[in-house]
C-alpha cells in the first residue's frame, strides 16, 4: 500500500470521526414535556426549546420576575405545544427580550419546576413587517 493511500484513509477516517462527533454533540429541538422526560431519565445535556413569552389578553408579556440583585430573572415561556414553563436565566434581562416574537432557550431542567437556560436566542420582529410609521417626530 502506498503512503498516499494511508494518508487518504487517515483523512477519510478523521472526516468520519468529525461527522460522528458533530452529530453526537449536536443538540436537539424539544418541547418542554419531552425535555422534562429527558431530565427525569437522567439526560442532562442542554437542549433547545422554541416558543414564545407568555402574554395576557392585551398582548402584554407577563411573568417576568427580576431577581433581587437584578443579575438574574425568571420568565414564563409557552412552547410550540402550548406547554407553559417557568424558565430561569442567570443573566440580566437581555435587550429587546420583551419585544421578541420568538425565543429559543438552550438549557435543561434543573428541578421539576424550573428550566434553567444557559443561553437565550431571540427573534425580533423584522423591520420589514413594521406597520407603524412614526407620523410625528419625537
Amino acid at each position, binding site marked *: 500500500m502506498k503512503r498516499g493511500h494511508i494518508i487518504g484513509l487517515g483523512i477519510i477516517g478523521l472526516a468520519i470521526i468529525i461527522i460522528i462527533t458533530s452529530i453526537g454533540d449536536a443538540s436537539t429541538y424539544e418541547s418542554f414535556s419531552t425535555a422534562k422526560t429527558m431530565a427525569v431519565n437522567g439526560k442532562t445535556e442542554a437542549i433547545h426549546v422554541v416558543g414564545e413569552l407568555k402574554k395576557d389578553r392585551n398582548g402584554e408579556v407577563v411573568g417576568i420576575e427580576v431577581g433581587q440583585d437584578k443579575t438574574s430573572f425568571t420568565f414564563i415561556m409557552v412552547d410550540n405545544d402550548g406547554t407553559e414553563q417557568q424558565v430561569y436565566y442567570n443573566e440580566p434581562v437581555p435587550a429587546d427580550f420583551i419585544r421578541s416574537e420568538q425565543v429559543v432557550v438552550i438549557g435543561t431542567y434543573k428541578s421539576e419546576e424550573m428550566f434553567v437556560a444557559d443561553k437565550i436566542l431571540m427573534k425580533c420582529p423584522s423591520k420589514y413587517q413594521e406597520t407603524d410609521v412614526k407620523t410625528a*417626530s419625537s
Partner: protein
Amino acid sequence: MMNTFMGNLGHFMVILAFVSALVSAVSYYYYTRAGELEKASWRNFSRITFYIHGIASVAIAFSLFEIIYNHRFEYFYAYSHSSMGLPVHYMISSFWEGQEGAFILWIFWNVVLGLVVIHTNKFWEGPVMLVFMLVQAFLVSMILGVVIGDLKIGSSPFMLLRDVSEAPIFQINPEFVPEDGTGLNPLLQNIWMVIHPPTLFLGYASTLIPFAFLMAGLGLKKYAEWIRPALPWAIFSAMILGMGIIMGAYWAYVTLNFGGYWNWDPVENAVYVPWLIMVAAIHTMITFKKSSTALKTSMVLVISSFILVLYATFLVRSGVLGDSSVHSFTDLGLSGQLLIYMLFFLAVAIFLAVREWKHIPTSEKEASVYSREFWIFIGATTLGLMAFQVIVPTSIPVYNALVESFGGLSNLAPPADQIGFYTKFQLWFAVALALLTGIGQFFWWNKMDKQDLKNALVTPYIVSMVLAALIITIGKVYDITYIVIVLAGAFTIVANSTILIKLLKKKTFKLSGGSLAHIGLGMVLIGVMFSSGYSDTISINMSGLTYKKDWEDELNKENVLLWINKPLQMKEYEVIYRGRYKKVVGVPGYVKADALEATGEINQSIAVRDIAVNDQLYHQKGDTVKLVLEENSYFKVEYYQEDDLKFTLFPMSQPNPTMGLISSPDSKRYLTRDLYTHVSAINDYEEPEWKEGDRVNAAPGEQFFINDFVTRFEGAEVVNELDGLPLEEGDVAVKANLTILDYDVEKKLAPIFLIRGNQVGKIPDIDNDLGIRVEVENIVPEENKFVFKVDTYQKDYVVMKAAVKPMINVLWLGTIVMLIGFSVAIFRRFDEFQKMKKKGLE
C-alpha cells in the same frame, strides 16, 4: 416634498448595470474565441460595455448614498437605516447596514478588481472577465427589484416607503414623508462598522479572481499557467479576508456585548471556512510552482473557497440560519436566487473540472516524507479538515431545511455549547498546524534527509522549549492542554524566526512572507490560549441574594449590581459606580448627565451648570451644547486598589426604543492584559415614577433621613433671583439648603419656596443619582421649622460584568505580523508575475 427622481435614477442604473454585465459577458466570450483579426474590436467592445457597467454600478451607489445623505425618508432604505441625528461617517455605515447596500458594496469591489485585472493582464483578460461579468450579473440581479407575476427577482434598495409599509397613513396621504428615520442600529454606530464591511466584502470579491483564472485555465486548456497570475490574488484574498475576520473579531471585542472576540457563531464560521480553504489553496499553489505537484488539489481548493463564499452568503442572507444565530438577518426572499447563484457556479466549475480532469497533468512521483511537498500537503489537509469540522455542524439548519423540504421532520439543533464544541477540535488542529509550519519551513528552504533535519531542528527545538518553559512559569499555565499549545506556539515562532533571520542575513526580505505569517500564527495561538483560556470573570456576585433554590448555588452569577457611590469588592479591585455621563462636542472626556438638559432638538442640550474640565471652562450655564449621540450614556466606574484610584472606565449603554438596552464595553488596556467591563442592565430613570414619601419637619441645623441617606438641613436663605431672573416686586423666595450624604459623596439640594401675592410656588430640587425629589411644602415660622415633602425613586445603579483578559495584545500583534507576512508574499508573487508578463510569456 416627495422625491422620486433619485430612486428612479438608481433603479435605472441597476437595470443598466445588469444588462451591461450580460452584454459584456457575451462580448468577452466572443473576444476569447475570436481570431486574431477580430480580437481587437471585440476587446474594445467588451471593455466599453464593462466601463458602462462600472459607471452604472458607481451610479447605483451614488444614488443610494444621496438618498441617505439628504435624509430622503420617503425611501424605505433611508427610513429604516438612517436618521436625522446621524453624523456623515455613520451614514456610510447605514449604506451597508441593509443587505441591498451590502450587495452594492460587493458589486462595486468587483468593478474595481475587474479594472485592475483588465489593466494588468493581456492574455487572460477575455476569459477571466467573462467569469467576472457573469458573477456581476448574478450580484446585480439581487438588487434588481423586478416582479413578474409571483416571481420576485432581487430586492431593490430604491423602494419608496409607501410601497413597502402598510401603515394606514399612506392611505390617507400617499405623499406623506416621515420627518425622521428609525436610525442605524446603535451597535453599528461605530468606526468598525465603517471599515469592517468594505474590507470583508473586498475579501469576498477577491476570492473571485483566483477562481476566474482557474476557470479560464480550464476553458483554454492551460492547466498550469493560470497559477502564476492567480497566486498573488489568492494571497491578497486570504489577506483581506483574514483582515476582515480580525476586524470583525476586534469590533466584537471592543464594541459588542458578546464578552469576547470570537463565539463560533454561524455567521463568523461562514467566513472563517472559506478563509481556511483559501490559505490551504495558497500553499498547494506555491508547491505546484516549485515542484509541479498538487495541481489538482489546488484546483479543488480554489473552487471550494469561491463556492464557500457563496455558501456563506447563502447561509447568512437566506434566513436559513433562522434562530440558530445571534445575528439577526432579515429574509429578503432572496434564498432561491442565492441558491441558484451558488449552484450555477458550482455546476460550471464541476463541469469544466470533470471535462478536463483526465488531461490535467499529475505527478506520479510518490512524495517522500523528507520532501517539502509532503509536509505542505499535510498542512493543507489539516486546514481542509479544520474547515470541514466547522462547516459540518454550522450547516445543521440547512440539513433541517432539506429534510423538511422533502416532508420529513428533523429536530437536530446546533451544539448547545458552541464555543466548547468547536474549540475542542480547532485547538488540536491549530496545534498540529503550528508544528507543521515549523517543520515545513525547514523543508521548504533546504533539501533535507533524516540527519539534516535533526541538525536543523535541534537548536530551534531547544530554544522553543526554553521559551515555552518561561511562558509556562511566568504565565502560570498548568493545564496540560494549554501547555501543549504554548509548546506548539513557541516552536512555530522560534523555528520560523530562525528561517527569517537566515533570510534577512542574505538580504532577501522579499522571501520572508511565509516565515512572518507563520510567526504571526504562533503568536495568535498563544494569545488566544491566554485571553480565552485564562479569561477571568472578576465580577462574581457574592451578594448571597438568591431565590433560595439549591441548584442556584451551582451557577456562578457573573454580573454584579453596583449601587451608585457604594463600593464593592471585585477580586483585587474595589469598584464604585459614579453615575451617568454624556459626550459633548468640543469637551474632552465625559460630562455628567445631570449637568445637561435636553432641548427636544436632536443631539442638543442646555448646560444647567458650568461645564469645566481640568479648571478650563468649556461651557457656561445656559449655553446650548451639542451632544455626540444623545442616546448614549456612559457609566462612570472607578477601580480602586488599596484606596488608590487606579483607573476609571466608561462603558456605554443606550436604552433604545426599538431594540432594548444596547451596550458597548470599555476596557482598561495594559500591555499584558485587558480589564474588560460592560453594562448588562441599568436603572431606567428617564421618566421616574416617584413614590410619594413622608413629610419631614426640620429646623435649620437638624439632621434627618431621606431613604436611608443622612440629610442635613444646613439652613435657609432669602434669594433675590430665580434661575438668573430677578424676582417681581413683593415676591418672597426662600431657598433651603440640604446636604445629603451618600458614602463619600455630599450632594447639595436646594428646593425653593416662593410667595407671590396669595400664591405659593414650590420649586423642587431633584437628584437623579440618588432618586430624590425634595420640595419645601411649608414654612412654619413660629416653630422655625420647614416642612419638606420628599419623593423617592430607585436610586441609580448599574449591573455590570468585568473580566480580565490576559495577553490579548499578543493575539492582536500576531494578527498584524501575519498580515505583514501576507503583504510581503503578495508583493513577491505579483513581482514574479509582472516579470513573466514583460517577457511576453503571459
